[in-house]
């Protein structure tokens, strides 16, 4: 193993290989961050919808989750990248105004956002359903509207309960950004492969990528653990009274 390779210049670009990997890492983190925001918002809404008393809302939420959970991620990438613009003329027109990188970034965020939102919806639903029924009834009894009951009673507890599974969803999302390589987004895995192919130093390239992914996973894990401790309510599960 020879670390000099990371300082070597990229033949047709500017900068050394380590800078290439660093720029890939930036794309990975950017996609993960944007997709997480989208997935968290959407997943919360769908998860809540699945616990309401409106039967059609529950049905629609269930169907949504099943749809995104039962199709492989790479096929979903192809659907968003090739099929949606092909079927919807308005999207096609809009896509042609983007430059390819923007199109790839947009596709990756939307695809991973929807994919992850279905998983978050499932966690939010089970978090809310794990609460004692009395909590909802008590909220209604003191005169809260349903949306107030969710906002002030159910969700604050449910979110705290599901922080551990949300942590693994966040880590899954970061790992799943690698699949954006399939549509040519120059994220970390794309750059790693490129480095391997152009220098034939696969071992060094893959070892570096492995190290980076492990560090991100650890960092995400620690960050969520910190949030969990900060938000803990004394007397409840994670909270030390």
């Amino acid at each position, binding site marked *: 193993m020879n670390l000099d390779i990371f300082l070597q210049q990229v033949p047709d670009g500017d900068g050394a290989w380590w800078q290439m990997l660093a720029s890939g890492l930036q794309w990975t983190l950017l996609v993960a961050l944007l997709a997480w925001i989208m997935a968290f918002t959407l997943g919360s809404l769908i998860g809540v919808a699945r616990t309401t008393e409106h039967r059609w809302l529950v049905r629609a939420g269930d169907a949504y989750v*099943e*749809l995104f*959970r*039962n*199709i*492989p*991620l*790479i*096929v*979903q990438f*192809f*659907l968003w990248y*090739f*099929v949606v613009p*092909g*079927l919807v*003329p308005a999207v096609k027109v809009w896509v042609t105004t983007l430059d390819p990188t923007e199109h790839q970034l947009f596709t990756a965020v939307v695809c991973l956002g929807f994919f992850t939102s279905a998983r978050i919806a499932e966690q939010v639903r089970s978090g809310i359903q794990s609460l004692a029924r009395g909590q909802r009834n008590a909220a209604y009894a003191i005169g809260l509207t349903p949306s107030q009951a969710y906002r002030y009673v159910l969700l604050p507890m449910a979110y705290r309960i599901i922080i551990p599974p949300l942590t693994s969803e966040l*880590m899954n999302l970061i*790992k*799943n*950004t*690698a*699949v954006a*390589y*399939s549509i040519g987004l120059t994220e970390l*895995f794309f750059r*790693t*492969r490129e480095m*391997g192919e152009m220098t034939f130093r*696969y*071992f060094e390239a*893959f070892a570096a*990528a*492995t190290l980076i*992914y*492990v560090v991100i*996973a*650890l960092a995400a894990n620690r960050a969520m653990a910190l949030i969990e401790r900060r938000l803990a309510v004394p007397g409840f599960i994670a909270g030390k009274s």
Partner: protein
Amino acid sequence: MSDLDFEIVGRSLPYLMRGLQYTVQLTLVAACGGVIFGTLLALARLSTIKPLALAAAGYVNLMRSIPLLLVIFWFYFMMPVLLQTLTGAERPPQIGAERSAYITFILFEAAYFCEIMRAGIQSIAKGQAAAGYALGLEYRQVMTLIVLPQAFRNMLPILLTQSIILFQDVSLVSLLNVTDFVGASVKVAQRDSRVIEMYLFVAVVYFVLCFALSAAVKQLQQRIAIVR
């Protein structure tokens, strides 16, 4: 859009089905191999021999924190080199992506199955193993006769759910140009410029299969739950 031509699906169906066959085969082999190897890993993680437990935990955590795609490419490029050093051959043996994928998925899935089996083993009351030892059974007998059968039974729905995820994850080998179900559809789509029809078809087939399989698992889960 009116110019969609789904006949392309019919015409290339035999080719696509061969791809699907490879996908199913890889899934089954990886699931069986993964459960066996994963159970051994779980026993190692729970072992009282510290170095063994640490090594197993390190392996599992490493596998679980890097993207599957990276693992697939690691094995694809490194396995020939590794085999060369192991066998002392003059040049790296040509295994090909189709075959290296079997080993990749067994070893990768083992990390996930390990965590499931570990939870399963820990869910069995300690008194059961203790009773086994009190009867004079050895570690091996306690595990194979008492603990593992129950752990496996309790975890069966989760193991099957993980296998459905595996079935979907196998599609990533198409990025190594392997002709699995997705790989076959990509090739047909590019050859005939029928991208939309092909990918819609693939999505529908996956959806129907995975939806039916998870519904079956749910039913099995309920049945097991009643017995307990």
